[in-house]
């Protein structure tokens, strides 16, 4: 059972401390507020949430790009929080990132071949000839011409650049790929190409994906299981299909109800739940349930008592006192 889990996070917290206006009082912003999750081998775990919900910070904490404030992350059964850089390195090889912006995540002054070869060089992959062969192989794996090693990132379109980023992430045969909004900067037709490519690679290379995005359609499309984040917490988790069809948390329900859908006149109109107000400032979280000020079904209890994430049925968890779709 445990063998099944590639990555396990327990109660991960990440606080940022800042001073307002330079010299004011210290303000603690809890970007990730106690997240526990598991990514199983070979699956895609989707994390969805609006901007500022802490999903990117969570991703960075999980791969130890940012040290956690508290909590534990286990990778392949090994606790990786608090490891020194040197001891972390063999694990790093196994987990790679694909970033959102294919324009800023590739060094504009380096050739594509060097960009993809960099992880190989750092991990002493082999001599120049081996490296060249591996780079050529990686480029063709992601659907680029292996002859483009001597070109620079600016010579490529956004979709092709994202392919370069994916090739770099795959260079060391990772088992986990953390993709933080990998397609949100791309046009829809190109987005579809990249999503299909990622699906093919997952199958061919038995990859586990942690897929972070704000687009509910994209997350549904790629994910086996989905976690919904709000103000640094996972408020609902479940397998993609049941979560999308029978959301338990009022926030999930509202999110899903307002995604613009293609209406060809054959479906009955949906009940849209338009939330009022904005997401509260994470440095001044409301007491009780963090969602209660915007929740259409909040009751008195929600303002005082904070709900915890509880498993209602196998694999289905929700942090809400009054979950929807009971049973």
């Amino acid at each position, binding site marked *: 059972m445990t063998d099944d889990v590639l990555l396990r996070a327990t109660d991960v917290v990440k606080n940022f401390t800042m001073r307002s206006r330079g010299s004011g009082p210290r303000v603690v912003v809890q970007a990730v507020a106690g997240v526990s999750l598991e990514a199983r081998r070979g699956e895609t775990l989707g994390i969805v949430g609006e901007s500022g919900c802490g999903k990117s910070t969570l991703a960075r904490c999980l791969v130890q790009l940012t040290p956690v404030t508290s909590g534990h992350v286990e990778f392949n059964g090994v606790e990786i929080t608090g490891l020194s850089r040197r001891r972390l390195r063999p694990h790093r090889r196994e987990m790679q990132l694909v970033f959102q912006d294919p324009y800023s995540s590739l060094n504009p002054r380096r050739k594509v071949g060097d960009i993809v070869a960099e992880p190989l060089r750092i991990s002493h992959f082999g001599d120049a000839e081996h490296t060249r062969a591996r780079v050529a192989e990686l480029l063709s794996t992601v659907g680029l011409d292996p002859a483009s090693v001597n070109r620079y990132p600016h010579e490529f379109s956004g979709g092709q650049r994202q392919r370069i980023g994916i090739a770099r992430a795959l260079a060391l045969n990772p088992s986990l790929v953390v993709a933080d909004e990998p397609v949100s900067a791309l046009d829809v037709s190109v987005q579809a190409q990249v999503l299909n490519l990622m699906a093919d690679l997952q199958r061919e290379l038995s990859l586990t994906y942690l897929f972070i995005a704000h687009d509910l359609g994209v997350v549904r*499309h790629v994910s086996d299981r989905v976690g919904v984040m709000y103000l640094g917490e996972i408020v609902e988790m479940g397998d993609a299909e049941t979560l999308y069809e029978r959301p338990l948390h009022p926030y999930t329900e509202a999110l899903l109800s307002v995604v*613009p859908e293609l209406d060809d006149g*054959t479906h009955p109109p949906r009940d849209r739940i338009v939330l009022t107000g904005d997401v509260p400032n994470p440095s001044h979280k409301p007491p009780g349930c963090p969602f209660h000020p915007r929740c259409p079904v909040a009751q008195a209890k929600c303002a005082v008592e904070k709900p915890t994430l509880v498993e209602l049925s196998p694999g289905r968890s929700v942090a809400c006192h009054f979950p929807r779709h009971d049973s």
Partner: protein
Amino acid sequence: MPESTDPATPLLEVDDLKVSFATRDGVVRAVDGLSLSVGRQEVVGIVGESGSGKSVSMYSLLGLVRDANVTISGRVRFEGRDILGLPDEDLRVIRGRDVAMIFQDPMTALTPVYNVGWQIVEQIRAHEDVTKAQARARAVELLGEVGIPDPARRVDLYPHEFSGGMRQRVVIAMALSCHPRLLIADEPTTALDVTTQAQILELIKKLQATYGSSVVLITHDMGVISEMADRVVVMYAGRPVEVGDRREVIRQPRHPYTWGLLGAVPRVESKRNRLVTIPGTAVSPLNLPVGCAFAPRCAHRFEACDQRPDLHGQGAHLDACWLSDEQKVQIRARVAATGVTT
């Protein structure tokens, strides 16, 4: 006062609009023959991917493309009056009063160094002879109308003190301050989260109903079109490839590009194993093919595609594709079943 208020004339008529830029590498044909009309109180959606010419076409008809190397031709009538190439002082009267714009990034429409009240007051006083106090009272009223809580206090805040969604509301308040007859919204919700997007779209719908304005909504998101537009224009490489009633286009898309565009969107309501993809990337506007601009990426091209198709069809649903109606129906069914455009 407008020259023609005859309700039968469309509010905006664009006829064979062409916008090209002379660059060091050659002539970039950004808009290559766009015709469209916007009726009174109608919401027309223009959909297309980046570089398809949807924004630049709307900017150019308002004289907002001020590049020394630009060439604009065609005919644009607003309420029956030719406005393309009018001197700037005449256009300035139209912009803001008769036609207002909302942009993707609200910060491009707001200056960071003045409070929002000042900016709305300036806009009102540019077009109407009112006192500062009157204009300010109107600004407060407008901010309340677009759903900004506590408008009497917020009117003195600066743009950076608002969230993205609230900032977009400020821009909408400004756009509506003179009750424009046409509102051009260029990706008004692309930078916003989905819950905020829902709020802003509802607001635009509500205000459109209250003031009876017409709206041109530019977006890349077919879902937004589906929720907002009466009619849709699908653009590719600077030309319309399909035009029709929103439901018709979504239910029975006729152009291979529209098939790809609709099939490429991952949906929340159904998990599909494979997305429809359009091979390749958009053509460069520097060297558009002689024939159909979509042909190099189209799996269904044949000899006829060496000639450039114009919009054609019966009724109000038009498309620019040489395939016969029967072929379109057959291929569309196959694409829907298999998820591949080839």
